């Protein structure tokens, strides 16, 4: 391409970083928009740059970031999940019913993670091995999982250890720290052959299969990781509210898709980057906060949110057609 001269033949050791730099090109515009919203928010809410303001803001963003990642992993494989909200709820009620019981925090966390991984992997096996459409399987799954959450905790209740709520949702930036760790783990996964195969398996499954990529394994692993992220988000939401609520996750399903779309993830598989999706979820959270501070009524907020999402999909399309 024409800008090849900018990065002369990379030294072999720097190939990884050169590729990473290339991936930023598609999301630069988005980063600028996010920065603009961040500045606007900083003006409206001067507390953003204090310790507790930053902590509060990242805490409101954190669960959305996790479910956006959960959705994007599936979208990269050419799938989608409508069960995200139900899994968040299930994670929340499991956490709220086990952590103050005999299992303790460690046991409860382990159970939340296992349930997420297990349900995710089972969904993946059904979608991939039986070749059923992901949208239908996860829609059906969302009913079953939501039912399971109601069985665990029929009405809001349960309890979280106060120290955990204070740690994750108090005045410390612990949530942001956890997010950084999650993102680093994702980078690590993407540097494994199985993780990198995600893109090939989503965009060109036949070609990937012919090249010797374990396409099915890569896709099932993606579903399992996605499930884990969802129940993890549920644990955090339970810590935020100090209790469990079997329908608390409902709004996350569509918000996760909205964040992915804002982040430039395509529905056909293999298109987009996780950094884009994270920026998309951040943008969505900022939008909600900014509109709140500007005094938008909830109805106006939803309308504005919808228009911005349509715009986010339309602009790249128009740009592509103009080329």
């Amino acid at each position, binding site marked *: *391409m024409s800008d*090849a001269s900018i*990065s*002369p*033949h*990379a030294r*072999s*050791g720097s*190939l*990884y970083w*050169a*590729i990473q*730099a*290339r991936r930023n090109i598609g999301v630069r515009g988005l980063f600028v928009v996010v920065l603009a919203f961040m500045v606007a928010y900083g003006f409206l809410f001067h507390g953003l740059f204090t310790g507790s303001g930053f902590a509060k803001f990242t805490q409101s963003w954190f669960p959305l970031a996790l479910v956006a990642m959960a959705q994007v992993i599936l979208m990269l494989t050419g799938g989608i999940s409508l069960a995200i909200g139900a899994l968040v709820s299930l994670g929340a009620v499991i956490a709220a019913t086990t952590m103050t019981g005999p299992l303790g925090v460690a046991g409860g966390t382990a159970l939340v993670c296992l349930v997420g991984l297990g349900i995710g992997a089972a969904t993946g096996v059904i979608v991939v091995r039986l070749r059923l459409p992901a949208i239908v399987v996860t829609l059906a799954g969302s009913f079953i999982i939501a039912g399971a959450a109601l069985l665990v905790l029929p009405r809001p209740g349960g309890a979280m250890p106060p120290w955990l709520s204070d740690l994750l949702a108090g005045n410390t930036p612990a949530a942001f720290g956890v997010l950084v760790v999650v993102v680093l783990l994702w980078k*690590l996964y993407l*540097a*494994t*052959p199985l993780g*990198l*195969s995600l*893109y*090939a398996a989503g*965009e*060109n499954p*036949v*070609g*990937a*299969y*012919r*090249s*010797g*990529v374990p396409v099915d394994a890569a896709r099932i692993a993606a579903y399992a990781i996605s499930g884990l992220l969802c129940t993890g988000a549920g644990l955090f939401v339970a810590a935020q509210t100090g209790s469990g609520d079997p329908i608390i996750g409902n709004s996350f399903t569509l918000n996760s898709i909205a964040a992915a779309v804002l982040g430039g993830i395509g529905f056909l598989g*293999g*298109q*987009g980057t996780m950094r884009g999706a994270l920026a998309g979820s951040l943008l969505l959270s900022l939008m909600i906060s900014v509109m709140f501070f500007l005094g938008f009524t909830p109805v106006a907020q939803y309308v504005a949110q919808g228009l911005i999402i349509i715009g986010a999909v339309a602009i790249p399309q128009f740009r592509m057609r103009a080329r």
Partner: protein
Amino acid sequence: MASSVPILAARGVSKAFFGNPVLRSVSISLEPGRVHALLGENGAGKSTLINLLSGALRPDSGTIEIDGKAVSRHSPPEARRAGIAVVQQELSLTNSLSIAENIGLGAYPRRFGLVDYPALAARAKAACDLVGLHEPLSTPVGELSLGRRQMVEIAKALYRKPRVLILDEPTSSLSATETRILTTLLEKLRSEGIAILYISHRLDEVMQLCQHVTVLKDGICTADRPLEGVNAAGLVRLMVGRDPGDLFPRWDSTRTERVAVSVSRFAAGLMRDVDLEVRAGEVVGIGGLVGQGQEDLLLGLYGAIPAKAASAVIHDAAGLPANVPQANTRGLAYVPADRKREGLHLIHPIVTNLMLPAFARMPALKLRSRARERETAMGLALQFAIKGDLGRAAQALSGGNQQKVALAKWMPLDPAVLLLNDPTRGVDVETKREIYAMLRAFAAAGKAVVLLSSDTPELVHLCDRVAVVREGRVITLLERGELSEEAIVAAAMGAEPERAAA
């Protein structure tokens, strides 16, 4: 002939799809240090043979041998382990990954369970240098031109250090420079003892590069010999020639002086600079290898894709139709090749399918007259010998009858120009005969017929004239007197000088 043991061989393999034999007892052996050409017309069975050799398909009978030993369960992973690499026509690349990540895909070097990027960079660079790819390895493949992507695909095959390299039309999207690099590379690989199977429609390349040739015709091997002492015309003769029997109706000229379609400097899709005139009462064939732009020519005339022309007259009116309804009102009808996706609405009743073009012309809110529709449909079914209850879904019909429905539905409009895209593809012999007779009858009734076909005998026996398309241009317009399978195939493959000499 060298008597070295072939690395990869097929012995008497046969393969049939849904009862249609595609390969019948074909043998081929790929020996080290030899570039082996595989030639054949569209549908001769080349792709099937490649798929058998690469393990993607299993033969119905016959064996695949690696290093002289028969393998019982040949599969793609097995083939990869044996060092067989295939460069397919459809690319196996991922646009969002970089060149290096694509080249190593499925065989990444690892360190501590992670992709070893420094090692990948070194090995991918070595493969890229071989094919002359100098773009940074971090470039996403989606940013490359089709020709460069083809080179990445070849580099990907070389990265695996193959013993057998199968290339399916590698040069179809390459520039002259890239083709030259590839030719030099293949010479070098050959001297290193790699066995190469080379499929190409460019006979000059084959003559220059290959030592041995296998020719397929209708699934049968018609030649398996060294290339020495064969010329291009001789190869063409081995590929064509089929006994037409009494499949085709008698050909009488029904051509009139009235111009039905006349375009000059026409361009649409892949097609450029087309000058074409079709008279009422004649059948004009469009021939050539698959995918050279022929379909764009029909779609452009039909207003289905954007088209331009310096001047155009269609059915006594100037200008090209801007869209499909306009084309229909001006007397054009188009029958697509893919009748299942484009030609018919399979789950709807036959009668609905037959009436669709008529619906398009009715005022949008006028009430339908079921009785009149049924009557028209019955008339069409009778005229076209469409068998069966018209109330059934179109998918219940055989391929041949479906094609007849796709054709018949236009008749109530009485089109002056019929644009037919491969109307006999996947159609049984009996229906073929009926369709051929219909085409000549249309012409006799004063309609102009443009027949795009991948079946060369069809063009020879039905058409008044045949335009042969290659790389988006009409390169020859053969008159009735000059029509022969040899002439069409030779023109399609760019072997004109030999044709003149023969």
